[in-house]
């Protein structure tokens, strides 16, 4: 047997150019994470639009893209969510070919555990909703759960016994850095400028929000002013600090979200297991680390770290569900800053500024949407028409009451 990780590809010797910013672009994308890069890629590939800059305040994809636990699935409850996440999952299935770059997409399936009678009812309902939306989903009894994941403790005498699980076989994980680099290389090849170390500090505007004539004419950055035709905000946890500059308010709230990895282990964990009720989810990375996450820290924060007691609780849950983990050493932990909304769904679409689109609020779950969102946002920028998959996620849903309340599938985990 080849040792775990032996099949990981070598790092390429060329990633992308490091250009000086031009003074003007047709499209400026703020934030060089997965969403910004995917949008750039599909702008070039699907629409031939390449006079585009992606502005990143740090290093490329060093935000949540570098910090997330890479779970990809589409078993969301509501039609609107299933549509965009399933669109994304279909793109994931062909992404390696599209990018001409390895992304190690591994469709090993996800088990979402149910621990209470209410969990069971909610889960069965979600499975049926998934099937109606053409998303692969099954309800499994504890014995069948144990067949898929033999190291999982399905005995009845634990504090929150496993009463069953939903299973989506097409769910999986991918190598997050490679995904970002694949999108970045393609966008760069097409002539799009990826500009690192370039923080957007504010905007130049004209017109007024009051009479609907407001526009952004350029962005003010740490590397000078850059004029732009259109702007797409893809700054994840920091989007509301930029919207504050534009005097646009939203329900977005930024929270630390932590993750951690163990030392390298032999392959022991064949799938992904998530539990919202006891707050832990686990997969095993290609090299062998157990990758674990939990819910967000309760308070608002931008510090890219979180509180220790969250980790303690998550480890307690993990060891109860997977007794075999008890001797695994924790290697590192970290946090990203995720932006959440009251209905656990993103905000994508128009702002009071005619030429500014917002894409934020993906909270704990926006890695999996990366190709799907990029596709739809590029379409919207290129055609001026909201792509039907993102249309339900407009900011005005908080006023009209048409909320997409996705807690049922998103919960506190992913």
């Amino acid at each position: 047997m080849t040792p775990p990780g032996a099949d990981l590809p070598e790092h390429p010797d060329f990633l992308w150019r490091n250009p000086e910013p031009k003074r003007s672009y047709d499209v400026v994308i703020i934030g060089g994470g997965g969403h910004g890069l995917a949008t750039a890629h599909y702008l070039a590939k699907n629409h031939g639009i390449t006079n585009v800059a992606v502005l990143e305040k740090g290093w490329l994809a060093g935000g949540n893209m570098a910090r997330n636990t890479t779970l990809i699935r589409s078993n969301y409850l509501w039609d609107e969510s299933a549509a965009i996440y399933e669109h994304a999952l279909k793109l994931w299935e062909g992404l390696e070919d599209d990018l001409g770059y390895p992304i190690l997409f591994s469709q090993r399936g996800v088990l979402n555990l149910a621990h209470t009678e209410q969990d069971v009812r909610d889960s069965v309902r979600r499975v049926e909703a998934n099937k109606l939306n053409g998303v692969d989903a099954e309800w499994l009894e504890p014995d069948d759960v144990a067949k898929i994941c033999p190291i999982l403790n399905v005995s009845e005498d634990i504090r929150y016994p496993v009463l069953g699980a939903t299973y989506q076989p097409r769910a999986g994980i991918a190598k997050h850095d490679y995904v970002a680099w694949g999108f970045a290389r393609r966008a760069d090849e097409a002539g799009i400028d990826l500009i690192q170390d370039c923080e957007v500090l504010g905007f130049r505007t004209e017109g007024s929000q009051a009479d609907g004539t407001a526009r952004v004419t350029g962005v003010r950055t740490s590397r000078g002013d850059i004029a732009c035709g259109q702007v797409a905000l893809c700054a994840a946890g920091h989007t509301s600090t930029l919207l504050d500059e534009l005097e646009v308010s939203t329900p977005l709230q930024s929270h630390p979200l932590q993750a951690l990895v163990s030392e390298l282990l032999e392959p022991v964990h064949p799938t992904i297991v998530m539990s919202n009720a006891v707050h832990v989810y686990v997969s095993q990375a290609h090299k062998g680390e157990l990758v674990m996450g939990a819910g967000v820290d309760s308070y608002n924060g931008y510090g890219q770290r979180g509180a220790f007691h969250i980790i303690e609780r998550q480890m307690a849950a993990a060891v109860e569900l997977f007794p075999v983990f008890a001797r695994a050493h924790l290697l590192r932990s970290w946090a990203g800053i995720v932006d959440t909304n009251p209905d656990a769904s993103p905000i994508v679409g128009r702002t009071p500024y005619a030429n500014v689109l917002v894409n934020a609020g993906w909270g704990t779950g926006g890695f999996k949407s990366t190709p799907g969102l990029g596709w739809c946002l590029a379409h919207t920028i290129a055609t001026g028409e909201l792509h039907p998959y993102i249309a339900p996620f407009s900011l005005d849903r908080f006023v009209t009451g048409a909320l997409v309340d996705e807690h049922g599938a998103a919960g506190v985990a992913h």
Partner: protein
Amino acid sequence: MQLIDCPWCGPREEVEFHYGGQAHVDYPAKPAELTDEQWARFVFFRDNPKGPFAERWNHSVGCRRWFNAVRDTHTYQFLAVYKIGENRPEIPGART
């Protein structure tokens, strides 16, 4: 783990507390007269600053009382704690 200074009990560990979001969000004086837009703002829209933020905390496993605090959301440092009904202390840079 950080210590939070309950105005009644003194410093206690963070795990004893429950977070309550933005402080000083007043219930509308004349609810019947609000537009949908105004209702949405009251129910859903909150500030999300990077820096000092006035927010509510509950000492849920201690005295179980609510209080307000100004905390820096970048450093997580508590800059002030004060009782419900008291005015927010002046802290440079604080928005709300």
